[in-house]
């Protein structure tokens, strides 16, 4: 009985994998022979991030927790869902909130916002755990010092991505969280109106640092959280920060390989 169903299926599978279309995409046989296992890793642009062979301990779940990989996967999920959100969302004080409401209430299968928000929370946690793992295995030690540094920048970028995204729904939660966060910039030494020593920056009688040009103003594009802030955060969130993060991830992965693959006892 089972055979009656499976036989045609496997015939169809064979038919498909022998077709010109399939063989033009995957230029080698199934990865069951060692030769093909090597070929599959080398001829696929995504898989070739990996080496062909690797130390057994280093690829164990128990060692890496796959945490860096999970973080990267979440980044991809966020890029994809974020793109869909951009179809509906307009970054203006007038429309932003209404667009979010529409997204949740009128878009069919509308869980993109949920996927994006929960995914972002999850990514913050997984970056922390990835850092914890890298620390606890001593993987920042030579020759991986520089890649640890890249990692720290990625950590900061992840937090900034999350922070800039927090403002976009333009609800009470959003603007006040950003207000609290950005109030700190007012206290930047030398560059914030209420920062130490800023008052000493004067030209004659004119004080150089005021609420219209200090560090907080640069962050918000205004004296308080408003339309310029929304636009600024939107551009950073959707274009600026993801580009930098993607670029640094490329460097990060490249260096994992060039530093000798996943760390292990010397």
């Amino acid at each position, binding site marked *: 009985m089972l055979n009656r169903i499976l036989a045609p299926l496997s015939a169809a599978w064979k038919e498909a994998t022998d077709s010109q279309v399939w063989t033009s995409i995957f230029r080698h046989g199934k990865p069951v022979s060692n030769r093909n296992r090597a070929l599959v890793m080398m001829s696929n642009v995504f898989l070739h991030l990996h080496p062909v062979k*690797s130390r*057994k301990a280093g690829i164990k779940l128990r060692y890496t927790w796959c945490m860096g990989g*999970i973080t990267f996967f979440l980044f991809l999920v966020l890029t994809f869902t974020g793109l869909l959100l951009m179809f509906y969302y307009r970054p203006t004080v007038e429309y932003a909130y209404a667009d979010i409401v529409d997204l949740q209430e009128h878009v069919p299968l509308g869980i993109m916002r949920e996927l994006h928000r929960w995914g972002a929370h999850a990514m*913050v946690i997984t970056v922390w755990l990835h850092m914890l793992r890298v620390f606890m295995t001593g993987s920042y030690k030579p020759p991986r010092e520089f890649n640890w540094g890249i990692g720290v920048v990625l950590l900061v970028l992840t937090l900034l991505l999350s922070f800039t995204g927090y403002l976009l*729904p333009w609800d009470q939660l959003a603007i006040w969280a950003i207000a609290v966060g950005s*109030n700190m910039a007012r206290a930047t030494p030398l560059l914030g109106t209420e920062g130490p020593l800023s008052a000493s920056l004067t030209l004659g009688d004119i004080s150089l640092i005021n609420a219209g040009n200090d560090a907080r103003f640069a962050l918000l594009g205004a004296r308080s959280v408003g339309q310029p802030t929304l636009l600024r955060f939107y551009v950073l969130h959707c274009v600026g920060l993801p580009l930098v993060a993607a670029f640094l991830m490329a460097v990060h992965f490249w260096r994992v390989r060039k530093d000798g693959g996943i760390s*292990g*006892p010397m």
Partner: protein
Amino acid sequence: MIDLFKDLVNWASGPTVLFTIATLGLLAAFRFTQVWSKTSAKVFFVVLAVFYTASMWDPDFFLIVAKPDNIPITGVIFLVFFFTWYAMHQGIQNDRRSAGEEEVLERQESEKVWVWPDLVYTEMLAMVILSIVLLVWSILLAAPLEQPANPADSPNPSKAPWYFLGLQEMLVYFDPWLAGVVFPTLIIVGLMAIPYIDTNPKGNGYFTFKERKAEIVIFLFGFLILWCLLVVSGTFLRGPNWNFFGPYEYWDVHRVEPLLNVNVSDFFWVKLLGRPLPTGGFFAALMREWLGILMVGAYLFVLPVVMSWPRERFPTGLKWLSCHHYFEKMGATRYYLGVSLFLMMMSLPIKMYLRWAFNLKYIVAFPEIFFNI
């Protein structure tokens, strides 16, 4: 009975008690490494899960824990506990192996294996599981959306996103220029500097505790206590006006906490000498603050030098202060960089305890130029 338990938990969640218990608990776990066993992990997680589930019947606990944007905090609590345990557990197992003439697990498994299928399948499985988790989470729980933004109506409490609440909690003890600008910068710089400060060649590429005790104790104290604990308590235990509320307490907006904080200058001039604070001009301000300036200067610039002295130069009872062996091992530059960063980190708990013990507000206070420490 239940009320008594709730009162106890509320009391134990207070900033002072919670911070002290957590720190002592962590230090004890480093001292008595048997606790990182599988059995104690199971007991711990069952207790935590039971506590969490049972508490859901308390309306105040439920209200704060079940807020959609606070769900990640529950995740942080369980995941951080689990992975810390997992790393330490493996480290201690490896330490046993190397003590018993056996090689650490990661060295035993140094043979090369094919990445397809061994790694690729694991990754695929991780992606599938994670996708399912995310989908279920997203279907079950709607993303929060509050009232439209209203710049005229600030909520109480106004909180930053949860991952910055450790910094917001620091605002209780430090002014914004330190808590919001200097310390975040130092955290980033300090993290990046770790590989260049830490010259211990051991423990590279495998879990271990014994071979890297100092590094692990310092890092985990920073990560678990000064970062994660403050994030968790900032989310769950800080209510209106950033006042402390126990997990079973109602967030009463009208609760007033008396603020009787005093500065070091008050202690010296008013309490000790019984005089008014010196006033008028720059030099009066310097005179007013001389003791605080001296204390901060000594802490940041003299203490590192003193700590580099050999043990013999310390009187009995203070010998533990000597970090001479680190000075020898690391060289002057690394030593001073490392010790300075470490002391900066420790300034947070020090300031916390000074506040709790003496109601101390500022050690150095120049409110005229927003320079308060």
